[in-house]
């Protein structure tokens, strides 16, 4: 599920930051803004930008490979954002959609509208504030392992047929690898997450297509990738 193209809807306060972050990681970033002024502003920053309105026909986006493209609905106005999300879902069945919501109420509407992932601005901010104050070391660790450029990484590894880990218990795999990596969880084909430390995780037998979520240093991750 490697993403090559990111399409961001909106070019306001939050959308600008989203664009700034994703353009460091992906070359194909396009902005669709509601006003001519926003389009001009984005273009000045060197970003490909076009104007759109909420009633647009989304056939134009069918030119993208949906497995390699991510659509981010980042309009500041929550009501418009919900309308945009439902419009995109209607026009592009298999598109991967991320939507930003101000509150939990809007977040649930966006989920109903078909967003694959909803990021609640308010809840995330409150979570981070509390995490920084209450668990500073956890914040540091999370920050470290979530940064792509850091030496310590969280990665997801798809286990294909022939991998020596197939058929083994998640707990045993975790024990085998514990000197080099931490196996945090496995996600099965039903997209259910089994944490290695939960009773369910202990008993989960690894199958073809499962995705391992591991934390470790680059070299150890590379070794694991070669092994599986």
């Amino acid at each position, binding site marked *: *599920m490697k*993403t090559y193209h*990111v399409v961001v809807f909106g070019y306001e*306060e*939050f959308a600008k*930051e*989203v*664009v*700034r*972050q*994703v353009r460091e*990681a*992906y070359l194909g970033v396009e902005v669709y803004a509601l006003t001519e002024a926003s389009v001009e502003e984005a273009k000045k920053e060197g970003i490909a930008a076009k104007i759109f309105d909420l009633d647009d026909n989304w056939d134009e986006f069918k030119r993208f490979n949906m497995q390699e493209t991510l659509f*981010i609905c980042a309009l500041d106005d929550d009501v418009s954002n919900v309308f945009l999300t439902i419009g995109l879902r209607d026009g592009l069945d298999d598109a991967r959609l991320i939507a*930003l919501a101000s509150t939990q109420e809007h977040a649930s509407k966006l989920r109903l509208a078909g967003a694959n*992932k909803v*990021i609640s*601005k*308010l*809840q*995330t*901010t*409150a*979570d981070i*504030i*509390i995490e*920084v*104050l*209450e*668990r500073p*070391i*956890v914040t*540091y*660790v*999370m920050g*470290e392992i*979530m940064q792509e450029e850091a030496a*310590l990484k*969280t*990665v*997801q590894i798809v286990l294909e047929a022939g991998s020596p880990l197939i058929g083994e218990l998640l707990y045993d795999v975790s*024990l085998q690898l*514990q*000197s*080099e*990596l*931490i196996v*945090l969880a496995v*996600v099965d084909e039903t997209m259910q*997450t089994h*944490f*290695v*430390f*939960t*009773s369910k995780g*202990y008993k989960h037998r690894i199958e073809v297509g499962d*995705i391992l*979520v591991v*934390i470790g*240093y680059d070299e150890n991750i590379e070794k694991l990738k070669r092994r599986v």
Partner: protein
Amino acid sequence: MMQEELTESERVSSSSYKQKYVGLLSRFLVDTAYFLKTSPRYKSAKNFFYNLLENNAFVYKRYFDLFMMVLIFSSVIILIREVRHEINDFWAVFNNYIISVIFLIEYLLRFWVISDSSDIVIDQYERDEHLQRRFRTGHALFKIFLAKWNYVRSPAAIIDLLAIMPFFHELRLLRLFILFRVFKIFRYTQNMQYFGYILSHKKFELLTLLTFASVVVFVASVLIYVMESNNPNSPINTLFDAFYWSIVTISTVGYGDVTPVTSEGRTVAIVVIISGIAVISFATSIVVTAFTEKLDDIRENKILADVKGLKHFYLICGYGIVARQTASKLRRSGRNVVVLDTDHQRVKEAKENQLYALQLDAASLSSYQKMGLDFEKQVNAVILLGESDIANVYTALTLRSIDHNMRILSLLHDKRNRRKLQLAGVNHIVYSQELIGLLSKEYSGRPIAFETMSMLRAEESGTAMEEIVVNERIADNFKKVDDMHIRRHRLLLIGLSKVSAEGFLFNPPPETPLEKGDIMIVAGEHSMINEFRLFTHMRLR
């Protein structure tokens, strides 16, 4: 002539002696004042006793107040018991001497701490020095006397003094002074102080009412005495009877034991009864109005007192949408939260959300003076969630001017102001827009890893990544990581933040030694983490 010269010489000599003694006294006064002012032990003792007696925010004051109230009630119980029973010598000594001595010590301590005499002397001395004139000892002594006198003549101090009276005599009448000890309760209960404070705001109205009632009682007493005393059927024979009848009637109590029998007397009664109704209605309205007007103040004072009593809390400045979310999450995790906002509606909303909320300007020093907080001991951290960066910078500077070490976190609205917040002394800056941008990027690249980490973060998922501090007990019981059998508790040890220079160790090997002050990061289910915490404290070598 000779006689006159001698007298003159004697006068000069007497005057120089006088000057010498005054000079000595002045020097003694000034030296003592400077000695006391520079003595840390004296200052700390005086501060301690001042806080104990006068500072409601002082932790030990509530224990002291409770102790004094126990003494007061014991004293009254002994007095009541004494009316019909013999009490043994111990309780008599306890009541007349021990309690009285404690009250005397309290009275003298209050007399001491109520004003600073050394400050008065030094101030006078330095002012006289500045104006190049001799130190005016008498002036300084008079100011000291005046400061102490103001205390002595205050109603509270008079009650204190009367409460000590049984100590001086064992006369039966003086024992009644023990009842004055009951009035001392005013000193130790804040609600009673509020009551006095509220009524003191209606001093003029109450005085007017008292004057009116006194005039009515006086005129009615005289009139009823004149009308009734010569009538053999009337129970009103003396001026005291007349006065007693007037008081009973104007207060609308009307026992009926003393009643006028003449028509003139009954006419006076009608006037007094009507006046009585007016007095009672007026008095009720004054008290009700006073309480209605001051209801918000009472509530605020109650919250202030509660906040002063909190041991640890987060102070949130500004109750906007982010603050609401943050405060509610902190509350759910069992933390105390105090909210400051100038907007009445927001403060009301915070109170409705079960938070301690005060309508105070977080950017004003006077707000913190009013709150009387000990930031170091009480405040975990200050969270600045004002509507603008301008407001947050200003508040941060105000807070920094109070305490250099407190933890301050601020929300950043415009990234161009990040440096300004840092310069204002903010320790942690949270910029929502950037966070959301980062999360979007993370999700787009590694959605499953991202979701896994999010689940560890989300409180409702049942799983968490938590910090466990290695305290002395844990360090004594577990020498190395392997001793803790973390996997047996179905937890993962993500890393160890070492107190020594090694910093953060990801996935530490089993033989890594544990030291006091290290912080373990473990991931697992909430319940398992809690069980593990218990285990680390239970096992003893």
